[in-house]
């Protein structure tokens, strides 16, 4: 194993991915409360927590600049927001921030749960579809890149002749959708052939609890307290 691989493996050892399923689930559900929050100050705290979790997870997430930019914008926006005075764009801000954070939470959940966990959590009927589509979405980019490359090596380029433009789009569309259909079909069959449906959910609970799991549970409780208790009490407690 190269030094880089070793470093990567070690980083993943301490990552959120290795948490107990129950801890992960409780964290995600607690942070999901962001959707019901109305106070921009609380939304800011949730945004910071979600961002911290994204970095803790050390998954593909933090290597995706657009996703990071997405959440940074929410954090920056909420800091710029004047908490003390009522602003005309308050509703828009809160609505937008909530949606953005829930979406980010979705990305985070997708990267922190293993396929096996998702399979159990989502249910027997839905999970092949969900995981199949996750695999499909992830490979869509790769398939698209390969098709564009295939067009390029064949000299099939985008140009202003209507006929050629049509053929460029139709050839891309046909290859793209056929490949996605092929992928979905094979993923679906492989799922079933490889014993999907015979997995016992109780196995998830057998996993060992680590120190970081307790930390995750503490964060969960803090998150729930922040979400439930009015801001005046929190600020009073900390003399803010």
């Amino acid at each position, binding site marked *: 194993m190269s030094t880089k691989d070793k470093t990567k493996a070690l980083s993943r050892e301490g990552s959120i991915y290795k948490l107990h399923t129950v801890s992960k689930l409780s964290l995600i559900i607690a942070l999901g409360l962001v959707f019901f929050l109305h106070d921009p100050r609380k939304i800011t705290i949730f945004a910071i927590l979600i961002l911290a979790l994204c970095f803790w997870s050390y998954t593909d997430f933090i*290597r995706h600049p657009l996703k990071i930019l997405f959440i940074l914008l929410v954090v920056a926006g909420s800091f710029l927001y004047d908490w003390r005075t009522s602003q005309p764009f308050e509703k828009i801000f809160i609505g937008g921030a909530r949606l953005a954070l829930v979406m980010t939470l979705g990305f985070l959940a997708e990267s922190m749960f293993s396929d096996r966990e998702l399979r159990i959590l989502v249910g027997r009927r839905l999970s092949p579809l969900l995981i199949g589509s996750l695999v499909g979405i992830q490979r869509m980019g790769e398939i698209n890149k390969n098709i564009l490359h295939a067009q390029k090596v064949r000299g099939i380029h985008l140009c202003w002749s209507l006929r050629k433009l049509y053929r460029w789009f139709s050839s891309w569309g046909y290859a793209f959708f056929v490949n996605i259909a092929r992928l979905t079909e094979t993923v679906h069959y*492989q799922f079933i052939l490889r014993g999907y449906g015979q997995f016992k959910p109780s*196995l998830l609970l057998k996993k060992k609890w680590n120190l970081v799991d307790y930390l995750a549970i503490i964060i969960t409780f803090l998150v729930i307290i922040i979400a439930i208790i009015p801001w005046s009490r929190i600020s009073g407690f900390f003399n803010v």
Partner: protein
Amino acid sequence: MEEYIRIKKIIVSKTKRVLLQNTFLPLERGVIAGIYGRTGSGKSTLMRVIAGVKTAYTSGLEISILWEPANLYRDFSNSIGFIEQCPRDNLITRRVNDELFFSLQSTGLSEDECSEKLDDISRLFNIRSLRERSAIELSEGEAQKIAIVEALCRDCELLLLDEPTAYLDEQSKQAFVEVLRNLSIQKPNCRIILSSHDAQLLSRVCNSVYEIRNQSIVKIDPHSLQRQNLISTFDKIDMNANKTVLSVRNLSFSYKSRKVLENINLDCKRGERVVIYGQNGVGKSTLLQLIAGLMKRYNGKIEIQSKDIRDLHDIWPEIIYLAMQEPNEQILSETVQEELELNYLFWEQSFDPSLVVGSTPLGNIFREWNISLDDQTFTLSYGQKRVLSLVPIFFKKPKLLLLDEPFSGIDYELRQRLMNILDSLSKEGTTICMTSHEHQVWQISSKVFNL
């Protein structure tokens, strides 16, 4: 009790071509049965039918089969291990570790028990460093290794392997042969069916070999499958006097933080035939894609006819052609005719069907390997798709031809035909740069480049 698979009829409904009819394949416990046959004869279709997987890509492939006894694949899914021909089609999760653990954990094993079961075979196939990687980052060869390890670790009663070694390097092929032999001894109840074009592999590991011939499955003597060497009329003459067509200087490339190529130097002369080889995942396909100008972020210099590839973007499709490793993604139209016409439209020429229906080299290949202009492209076999992805080279005659594993998934006779065409292209001055894991391809090249 004798076990067998009886097949009443398998047809490709669009063309009404019968692949198999009134035939049967015996199943014997502890025996490795090999399936051999020409490209497009129906080997992969047969494997998918046995696995219980429908082969229909909704547009027109229909199979009618009579099982004895009738069974649904869902009922005995956990008893079947199936490796599809296209390596990436076998991967169903996002992380390699999840991929390896998926089936084992489904049977109720804990993570530690799975690791224990995987350890020995992982070491043999040298996949330990891959286990933390994302599945989509894998090369075709690496994906194939993961699929093999996953399937061989399971306690299957029926193991179906469709061209399992097509993309493997020599070391992994050896490991595969060793593991498969041990498996047939350790698990005497397991029936293994292996489909391959590799005559040497079949004669080495299979106890009985069957050939699909004239719509039937016929038993043949495994020892009759001798190593079939490609014959080339291409002379290994000294090319130094020729002009340099391709020059790669100090080329380095990384995928995010993973360094793949470092300080690569390569020169190819006019008319030269260069084979690039190396272990799975070493960066062979990446190198070809960089030479083809498909990826721009690299360090070093790539020059085609003394011009930097980055400055050739307007004219390079006229100079270079790349046949990618995965033919499925290189096919862009619904029918074979539309696929061929597509090239001509962008070259501002009109397509002449007599090129593929007459007695031209390409026409002969189309006729003998059952490819017709009306065929739906995605119902073709893997080998037929590969031929189709190579068709533009017949018309374009590029100065630099890049071929990524061009002979995988195609039979010996078709390989020889394609080799003859490559010979004539080389003689006309086309420089050919290809990747291959096969010794027989190395032997007929003018230069072998170890990556």
